Protein backbone atom coordinates (compact mmCIF):
# COMPACT_ATOMS: atom_id res chain seq x y z
CA UNK A 1 0.00 0.00 0.00
CA UNK A 2 1.36 3.43 -0.96
CA UNK A 3 2.23 5.70 1.93
CA UNK A 4 -0.06 8.75 1.93
CA UNK A 5 2.14 11.80 2.33
CA UNK A 6 0.75 14.95 3.89
CA UNK A 7 1.39 16.82 0.66
CA UNK A 8 -0.39 14.13 -1.36
CA UNK A 9 -3.40 14.18 0.93
CA UNK A 10 -3.59 17.97 0.70
CA UNK A 11 -3.43 17.85 -3.09
CA UNK A 12 -6.18 15.30 -3.25
CA UNK A 13 -8.41 17.38 -0.97
CA UNK A 14 -7.89 20.43 -3.18
CA UNK A 15 -8.60 18.44 -6.34
CA UNK A 16 -11.82 17.15 -4.75
CA UNK A 17 -12.79 20.72 -3.85
CA UNK A 18 -12.10 21.91 -7.40
CA UNK A 19 -14.10 19.01 -8.83
CA UNK A 20 -16.99 19.90 -6.57
CA UNK A 21 -16.85 23.57 -7.57
CA UNK A 22 -16.78 22.57 -11.21
CA UNK A 23 -19.86 20.37 -10.75
CA UNK A 24 -21.59 23.25 -8.99
CA UNK A 25 -20.72 25.56 -11.86
CA UNK A 26 -21.97 23.11 -14.50
CA UNK A 27 -25.26 22.64 -12.63
CA UNK A 28 -25.73 26.34 -11.97
CA UNK A 29 -25.05 27.30 -15.58
CA UNK A 30 -27.42 24.61 -16.85
CA UNK A 31 -30.16 25.96 -14.57
CA UNK A 32 -29.73 29.47 -15.98
CA UNK A 33 -30.27 28.15 -19.48
CA UNK A 34 -33.11 25.92 -18.38
CA UNK A 35 -34.93 28.79 -16.64
CA UNK A 36 -34.48 31.01 -19.68
CA UNK A 37 -32.22 33.63 -18.09
CA UNK A 38 -29.57 32.92 -20.71
CA UNK A 39 -29.82 31.72 -24.29
CA UNK A 40 -27.37 30.33 -26.83
CA UNK A 41 -25.88 33.74 -27.50
CA UNK A 42 -24.12 33.44 -24.13
CA UNK A 43 -22.44 30.29 -25.46
CA UNK A 44 -21.24 32.30 -28.45
CA UNK A 45 -19.42 34.58 -26.01
CA UNK A 46 -17.87 31.59 -24.24
CA UNK A 47 -16.58 30.29 -27.55
CA UNK A 48 -14.80 33.60 -28.13
CA UNK A 49 -12.77 33.17 -24.93
CA UNK A 50 -9.37 31.50 -25.27
CA UNK A 51 -5.79 31.68 -23.98
CA UNK A 52 -5.16 35.03 -25.70
CA UNK A 53 -8.52 36.44 -24.56
CA UNK A 54 -8.91 34.70 -21.18
CA UNK A 55 -11.37 37.16 -19.66
CA UNK A 56 -13.52 37.98 -22.65
CA UNK A 57 -16.84 36.87 -21.15
CA UNK A 58 -16.35 38.85 -17.94
CA UNK A 59 -15.18 41.90 -19.92
CA UNK A 60 -18.19 41.96 -22.23
CA UNK A 61 -20.68 41.29 -19.46
CA UNK A 62 -19.10 43.96 -17.24
CA UNK A 63 -19.46 46.44 -20.09
CA UNK A 64 -23.08 45.31 -20.44
CA UNK A 65 -23.69 45.98 -16.73
CA UNK A 66 -22.21 49.49 -16.95
CA UNK A 67 -24.08 50.41 -20.09
CA UNK A 68 -27.35 48.92 -18.84
CA UNK A 69 -27.23 50.86 -15.61
CA UNK A 70 -26.70 54.06 -17.56
CA UNK A 71 -29.63 53.22 -19.84
CA UNK A 72 -31.94 52.34 -16.95
CA UNK A 73 -31.14 55.65 -15.24
CA UNK A 74 -31.90 57.54 -18.43
CA UNK A 75 -35.12 55.59 -18.95
CA UNK A 76 -36.25 56.35 -15.40
CA UNK A 77 -35.60 60.07 -15.91
CA UNK A 78 -37.27 60.11 -19.32
CA UNK A 79 -40.45 58.55 -17.93
CA UNK A 80 -40.54 61.05 -15.06
CA UNK A 81 -40.79 64.02 -17.42
CA UNK A 82 -43.96 66.11 -17.55
CA UNK A 83 -44.14 65.58 -21.26
CA UNK A 84 -42.69 62.18 -22.16
CA UNK A 85 -40.64 61.86 -25.32
CA UNK A 86 -41.79 58.37 -26.34
CA UNK A 87 -39.50 58.30 -29.35
CA UNK A 88 -36.51 58.80 -27.09
CA UNK A 89 -37.75 56.19 -24.61
CA UNK A 90 -38.29 53.73 -27.47
CA UNK A 91 -34.79 54.33 -28.81
CA UNK A 92 -33.31 53.65 -25.39
CA UNK A 93 -35.32 50.46 -24.91
CA UNK A 94 -34.20 49.42 -28.39
CA UNK A 95 -30.56 49.87 -27.30
CA UNK A 96 -31.15 47.88 -24.13
CA UNK A 97 -32.88 45.12 -26.08
CA UNK A 98 -29.94 45.01 -28.49
CA UNK A 99 -27.22 44.67 -25.89
CA UNK A 100 -29.25 42.20 -23.81
CA UNK A 101 -29.76 40.07 -26.90
CA UNK A 102 -26.06 40.25 -27.75
CA UNK A 103 -24.97 38.76 -24.43
CA UNK A 104 -27.79 36.23 -24.29
CA UNK A 105 -29.87 37.84 -21.53
CA UNK A 106 -33.07 36.34 -22.91
CA UNK A 107 -35.59 37.36 -20.27
CA UNK A 108 -34.46 40.99 -20.29
CA UNK A 109 -34.68 41.01 -24.07
CA UNK A 110 -38.26 39.68 -24.00
CA UNK A 111 -39.45 42.34 -21.56
CA UNK A 112 -37.86 45.00 -23.80
CA UNK A 113 -39.96 43.82 -26.73
CA UNK A 114 -43.18 44.27 -24.75
CA UNK A 115 -41.90 47.59 -23.38
CA UNK A 116 -41.43 48.89 -26.92
CA UNK A 117 -45.06 48.09 -27.76
CA UNK A 118 -46.16 50.40 -24.93
CA UNK A 119 -43.88 53.13 -26.27
CA UNK A 120 -45.47 52.80 -29.69
CA UNK A 121 -48.92 53.09 -28.12
CA UNK A 122 -47.71 56.01 -25.96
CA UNK A 123 -49.11 54.13 -23.00
CA UNK A 124 -47.57 55.81 -19.89
CA UNK A 125 -48.92 53.33 -17.39
CA UNK A 126 -47.77 50.38 -19.44
CA UNK A 127 -44.32 51.92 -19.86
CA UNK A 128 -43.96 52.38 -16.13
CA UNK A 129 -45.00 48.81 -15.45
CA UNK A 130 -42.50 47.51 -17.99
CA UNK A 131 -39.76 49.77 -16.65
CA UNK A 132 -40.21 48.08 -13.27
CA UNK A 133 -40.28 44.67 -14.89
CA UNK A 134 -37.17 45.25 -16.97
CA UNK A 135 -35.30 46.53 -13.91
CA UNK A 136 -36.37 43.41 -12.04
CA UNK A 137 -35.24 41.03 -14.78
CA UNK A 138 -31.98 42.92 -15.21
CA UNK A 139 -31.23 42.75 -11.48
CA UNK A 140 -31.92 39.00 -11.50
CA UNK A 141 -29.68 38.20 -14.46
CA UNK A 142 -26.94 40.45 -13.10
CA UNK A 143 -26.91 38.67 -9.78
CA UNK A 144 -26.89 35.25 -11.45
CA UNK A 145 -24.03 36.16 -13.78
CA UNK A 146 -22.06 37.53 -10.83
CA UNK A 147 -22.54 34.21 -9.04
CA UNK A 148 -21.31 32.41 -12.15
CA UNK A 149 -18.17 34.56 -12.34
CA UNK A 150 -17.51 34.10 -8.64
CA UNK A 151 -17.63 30.30 -8.98
CA UNK A 152 -15.32 30.48 -11.99
CA UNK A 153 -12.85 32.60 -10.00
CA UNK A 154 -12.95 30.16 -7.06
CA UNK A 155 -12.04 27.31 -9.39
CA UNK A 156 -9.12 29.27 -10.78
CA UNK A 157 -7.92 30.18 -7.31
CA UNK A 158 -8.09 26.56 -6.12
CA UNK A 159 -5.71 25.22 -8.73
CA UNK A 160 -3.35 22.63 -7.23
CA UNK A 161 -0.42 23.58 -9.39
CA UNK A 162 -0.32 27.18 -10.65
CA UNK A 163 1.42 25.96 -13.77
CA UNK A 164 -1.16 23.34 -14.64
CA UNK A 165 -3.77 24.07 -17.23
CA UNK A 166 -7.23 24.39 -15.77
CA UNK A 167 -9.97 24.69 -18.32
CA UNK A 168 -11.88 27.83 -17.48
CA UNK A 169 -15.48 26.85 -17.28
CA UNK A 170 -16.50 30.07 -18.98
CA UNK A 171 -14.53 28.82 -21.99
CA UNK A 172 -16.80 26.62 -24.07
Amino acid at each position, binding site marked *: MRPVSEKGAKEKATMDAVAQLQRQLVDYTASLFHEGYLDDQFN*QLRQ*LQDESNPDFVVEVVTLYFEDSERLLNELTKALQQQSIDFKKVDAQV*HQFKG*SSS*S*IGAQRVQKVCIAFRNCCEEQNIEGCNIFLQQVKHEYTLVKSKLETLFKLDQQILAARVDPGSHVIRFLQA
Partner: protein
Amino acid sequence: MNKLRALVVDDNIINQMIHHRLLDNLGIENQVVGNGKEAVDVHSSGTYFDVILMDMDMPIMNGIEATKKLREMGIRSFIAGVTTRALEQEKGEFMEAGLDDYQEKPLTTAKLLSILHKINHSGIHNFS
Protein backbone atom coordinates in the same frame (compact mmCIF):
# COMPACT_ATOMS: atom_id res chain seq x y z
CA MET B 1 -2.35 35.61 -49.07
CA ASN B 2 -3.96 38.96 -48.43
CA LYS B 3 -5.48 39.39 -45.01
CA LEU B 4 -9.11 40.46 -45.10
CA ARG B 5 -9.97 43.85 -43.62
CA ALA B 6 -13.34 44.63 -42.12
CA LEU B 7 -15.18 47.69 -40.82
CA VAL B 8 -17.71 47.36 -37.99
CA VAL B 9 -20.34 50.10 -37.98
CA ASP B 10 -22.49 50.02 -34.83
CA ASP B 11 -23.42 52.53 -32.13
CA ASN B 12 -23.87 49.92 -29.41
CA ILE B 13 -20.63 49.46 -27.45
CA ILE B 14 -21.39 45.88 -26.46
CA ASN B 15 -21.94 44.94 -30.10
CA GLN B 16 -18.76 46.78 -31.04
CA MET B 17 -16.79 44.65 -28.59
CA ILE B 18 -18.39 41.38 -29.66
CA HIS B 19 -18.16 42.00 -33.42
CA HIS B 20 -14.54 43.08 -33.06
CA ARG B 21 -13.71 39.86 -31.20
CA LEU B 22 -15.70 37.69 -33.64
CA LEU B 23 -13.65 39.11 -36.51
CA ASP B 24 -10.36 38.89 -34.58
CA ASN B 25 -11.11 35.26 -33.86
CA LEU B 26 -11.33 34.57 -37.58
CA GLY B 27 -8.06 36.39 -38.23
CA ILE B 28 -9.72 39.39 -39.83
CA GLU B 29 -8.12 42.76 -39.27
CA ASN B 30 -10.87 45.18 -38.31
CA GLN B 31 -11.74 48.72 -37.35
CA VAL B 32 -14.79 49.88 -35.41
CA VAL B 33 -16.80 53.09 -35.86
CA GLY B 34 -19.91 54.31 -34.05
CA ASN B 35 -22.25 55.57 -36.77
CA GLY B 36 -22.82 55.94 -40.51
CA LYS B 37 -21.06 59.28 -40.79
CA GLU B 38 -17.88 57.86 -39.25
CA ALA B 39 -18.12 54.96 -41.70
CA VAL B 40 -18.21 57.41 -44.61
CA ASP B 41 -15.44 59.59 -43.16
CA VAL B 42 -13.05 56.68 -42.68
CA HIS B 43 -13.22 56.09 -46.44
CA SER B 44 -12.40 59.68 -47.31
CA SER B 45 -8.72 59.10 -46.65
CA GLY B 46 -8.70 56.31 -49.21
CA THR B 47 -8.94 53.42 -46.73
CA TYR B 48 -10.49 50.30 -48.21
CA PHE B 49 -12.28 47.43 -46.50
CA ASP B 50 -13.13 44.05 -47.96
CA VAL B 51 -16.24 43.78 -45.85
CA ILE B 52 -18.40 46.26 -43.95
CA LEU B 53 -20.77 45.11 -41.18
CA MET B 54 -23.42 47.82 -41.18
CA ASP B 55 -25.92 48.27 -38.37
CA MET B 56 -29.22 49.94 -39.31
CA ASP B 57 -30.30 52.15 -36.40
CA MET B 58 -27.58 54.64 -35.56
CA PRO B 59 -27.54 58.32 -34.62
CA ILE B 60 -26.27 61.10 -36.94
CA MET B 61 -26.36 58.86 -40.04
CA ASN B 62 -28.14 55.50 -40.07
CA GLY B 63 -27.21 52.34 -41.97
CA ILE B 64 -29.46 53.01 -44.95
CA GLU B 65 -28.10 56.52 -45.49
CA ALA B 66 -24.52 55.40 -44.99
CA THR B 67 -24.86 52.51 -47.44
CA LYS B 68 -26.36 54.80 -50.07
CA LYS B 69 -23.59 57.35 -49.53
CA LEU B 70 -20.82 54.75 -49.77
CA ARG B 71 -22.24 53.37 -53.03
CA GLU B 72 -22.52 56.93 -54.39
CA MET B 73 -18.86 57.40 -53.52
CA GLY B 74 -18.08 54.37 -55.67
CA ILE B 75 -17.23 52.05 -52.77
CA ARG B 76 -17.59 48.46 -54.01
CA SER B 77 -16.83 46.74 -50.70
CA PHE B 78 -19.06 43.87 -49.63
CA ILE B 79 -21.61 45.49 -47.29
CA ALA B 80 -23.57 43.21 -44.98
CA GLY B 81 -26.48 44.77 -43.12
CA VAL B 82 -26.57 43.50 -39.54
CA THR B 83 -29.74 44.44 -37.74
CA THR B 84 -32.51 43.40 -35.41
CA ARG B 85 -35.18 44.58 -37.80
CA ALA B 86 -37.10 41.63 -39.13
CA LEU B 87 -39.96 43.20 -41.08
CA GLU B 88 -39.78 42.41 -44.81
CA GLN B 89 -40.39 46.04 -45.72
CA GLU B 90 -37.54 47.34 -43.57
CA LYS B 91 -35.24 44.59 -44.83
CA GLY B 92 -36.17 45.50 -48.41
CA GLU B 93 -35.43 49.17 -47.88
CA PHE B 94 -32.04 48.37 -46.40
CA MET B 95 -31.16 45.94 -49.21
CA GLU B 96 -32.20 48.52 -51.81
CA ALA B 97 -29.78 51.03 -50.32
CA GLY B 98 -26.99 48.84 -51.71
CA LEU B 99 -26.37 45.89 -49.39
CA ASP B 100 -24.78 42.68 -50.64
CA ASP B 101 -26.12 40.61 -47.75
CA TYR B 102 -28.31 40.84 -44.70
CA GLN B 103 -27.96 39.11 -41.33
CA GLU B 104 -30.17 39.29 -38.28
CA LYS B 105 -28.61 40.19 -34.97
CA PRO B 106 -27.13 38.94 -32.77
CA LEU B 107 -24.10 38.07 -34.89
CA THR B 108 -22.47 34.70 -34.41
CA THR B 109 -19.38 33.04 -35.87
CA ALA B 110 -21.65 30.98 -38.14
CA LYS B 111 -23.37 34.09 -39.54
CA LEU B 112 -20.03 35.77 -40.07
CA LEU B 113 -18.71 32.73 -41.93
CA SER B 114 -21.79 32.77 -44.12
CA ILE B 115 -21.07 36.41 -44.99
CA LEU B 116 -17.43 35.61 -45.74
CA HIS B 117 -18.31 32.71 -48.00
CA LYS B 118 -20.28 35.11 -50.16
CA ILE B 119 -17.36 37.41 -50.68
CA ASN B 120 -15.48 36.83 -53.89
CA HIS B 121 -11.97 37.02 -52.57
CA SER B 122 -8.93 34.96 -53.47
CA GLY B 123 -7.65 34.77 -49.92
CA ILE B 124 -10.78 33.26 -48.47
CA HIS B 125 -10.04 29.56 -48.84
CA ASN B 126 -9.07 29.35 -45.14
CA PHE B 127 -12.61 29.76 -43.98
CA SER B 128 -14.61 26.57 -43.74
